[in-house]
């Protein structure tokens, strides 16, 4: 029971307490949003993925829309870590909101040294975007396999004392196994998930719609898929799961938290409604108030599975 106006929105992610569970998804957030919303209301900042060196990103076109979603192949244009520390970080210093830095590198060692370099005051956590290809192992993304995930996470863990979030790819057959590997190697949280590898072809030119040929699908279209992965991961690990995929409303955020997410990241929705995050925060509070749930954290893993509902394991796959 709660009196109006006293919903506790805070959640704990590894060592961090966030004022609420809503934060941006990497690559869909920048200083510009400051003109749209009060940055002091966000649960956290999450930066666009940065790399050690300067990177140009992919050829244009970099996005194409489809019903219910967006396919992007931005690549990781990055001005490099020095620029980030000197020029980008100061933007966020004025706010009372934890800054999470998303990083990427083509080798486990590269990840580790970047994390070490970024383990400085002003940074609250590292989010390792391991959906990028592991050049030591035949170009597959680290997060496609439990072994490479475990290895890169272990190196990262050794390199930094900051809370370590590992962002997984949905493009693998066994996300919970990969999540377990991240947990075993010392991750403080897993972010589930990045975009789903997709494609679109232009029927006028017969050419791919994206300069990179393939790209990642995001937005409402992927919500049911990623929600399932969050549910599976939350059963597989005890560290917090941060849900990310198609969240556009407070109801979406509630659904993710019930499935097992301790916090949520909002990406593509911000492109359609730039204040989506603060709207979701308000909506979460309103939802809890209406349903007499005193703390938003009570929603986490709240999905009600009745015995009779347990799937017939011999036929669990959707097959249908």
């Amino acid at each position: 029971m709660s009196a109006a106006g006293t919903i506790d929105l805070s959640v704990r992610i590894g060592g961090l307490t966030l004022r609420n569970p809503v934060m941006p998804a990497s690559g869909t957030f920048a200083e510009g949003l400051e003109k749209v919303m009060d940055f002091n209301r966000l649960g956290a900042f999450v930066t666009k993925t940065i790399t050690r060196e300067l990177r140009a990103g992919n050829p244009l076109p970099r996005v194409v829309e489809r019903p219910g979603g967006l396919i992007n192949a931005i690549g990781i244009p990055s001005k490099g870590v020095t620029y980030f520390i000197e020029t980008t970080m100061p933007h966020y210093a004025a706010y009372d909101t934890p800054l999470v830095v998303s990083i990427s590198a083509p080798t486990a060692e590269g990840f580790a040294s970047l994390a070490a370099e970024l383990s400085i005051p002003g940074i609250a956590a590292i989010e390792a975007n391991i959906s990028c290809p592991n050049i030591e192992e035949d170009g597959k993304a680290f997060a496609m396999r439990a072994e490479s995930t475990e290895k890169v996470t272990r190196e990262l863990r050794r390199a930094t004392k900051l809370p370590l979030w590992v962002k997984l790819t949905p493009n693998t057959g066994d996300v919970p196994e990969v999540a377990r590997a991240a947990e075993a190697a010392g991750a403080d949280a897993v972010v589930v998930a990045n975009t789903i590898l997709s494609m679109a072809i232009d029927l006028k030119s017969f050419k791919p719609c994206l300069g990179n040929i393939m790209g990642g699908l995001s937005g409402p279209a992927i919500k049911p898929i990623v929600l399932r992965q969050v549910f599976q991961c939350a059963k597989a690990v005890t560290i917090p799961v941060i849900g990310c995929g198609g969240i556009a409303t407070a109801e979406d955020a509630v659904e993710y938290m019930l499935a097992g997410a301790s916090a949520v990241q909002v990406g593509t929705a911000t492109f359609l409604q730039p204040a989506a995050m603060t709207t979701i925060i308000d909506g979460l509070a309103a939802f809890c108030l209406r349903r007499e749930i005193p703390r938003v954290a009570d929603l986490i893993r709240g999905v009600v599975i009745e015995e009779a509902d347990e799937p017939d394991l011999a036929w669990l796959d959707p097959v249908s």
Partner: protein
Amino acid sequence: MSIQRDQSLATPVAAIGGGSSPAPWKATIVAELVEVVRNEAVNAEYRHLVVNCGKEAAAAQPGQFFQLLCPQPAGEQPFLRRPMSLYGADPDKRQVAFLYKVTGAGTRGLDTLKPGDRLDIMGPLGVGFTLDPAWRHIVAVGRGAGLATLAPLARAARANGTQVTAVFSARRPELLVSVELFQRHGADVIAVTDAEQTSGPANVERILRRQIAEGRCDAFFTCGSSRLMRVQQRLAREFGLPGQVAMEQQMACGIGLCYCCVRDFNVNGEIVNRRVCWDGPVFDLMEALP
């Protein structure tokens, strides 16, 4: 994804927690549900859309743009917002206007709007044109949707005490837009068209050289044609004139988050990457690459 006004902007729910907001924070870019006042064809290609909006939107400056969440036309589902230049703003009446061409799903959706309908617009966005008070004469060169983008310059230049010569290009005379708007604000309008075979770069260059020779060109403003932009770059270099160009690029977020709208620019011989939505859409004429 619902096409609804983002309520949080209108009614911050401060009472129910969710963050400390010590300083009274104010949005300068808003997404708001506005009311359509008018949506009519001005010729075979362009439609004129006027909406009642809030004060942030009505404060838009020439060269800035908005991202419109277009209604879904039958059988199509535009997902992203669509960028549209400010065609006119009236801070007193709290109105903004757009001039758009129906080309695909999004603009077909815009075309379905009737007076009284609601539309979700987000803005004002980007960096607009800059008018130096020292300039006595400027030349605006536009083609296609570029005429819409240049339109609010007419009024701003008069307010600045600057005389405008507008060189407007179109396929056919009846497709020219904003001519009267410029004339009403005291501008000279020189129309060139494909149909009359006056729109070629050679002829436009002749026209521009005459303006320069007559001392009527302290700066170039252009939008909508890279062929014409190149002509102006050549002349600007030859005569040491400044210039500004409004660029287009496909956009997703419109506010500098996603890096899908980048273009290359030549900054003192170095190629740099800039976001059209955030670093532009108006750029230094000499730095722009076609």
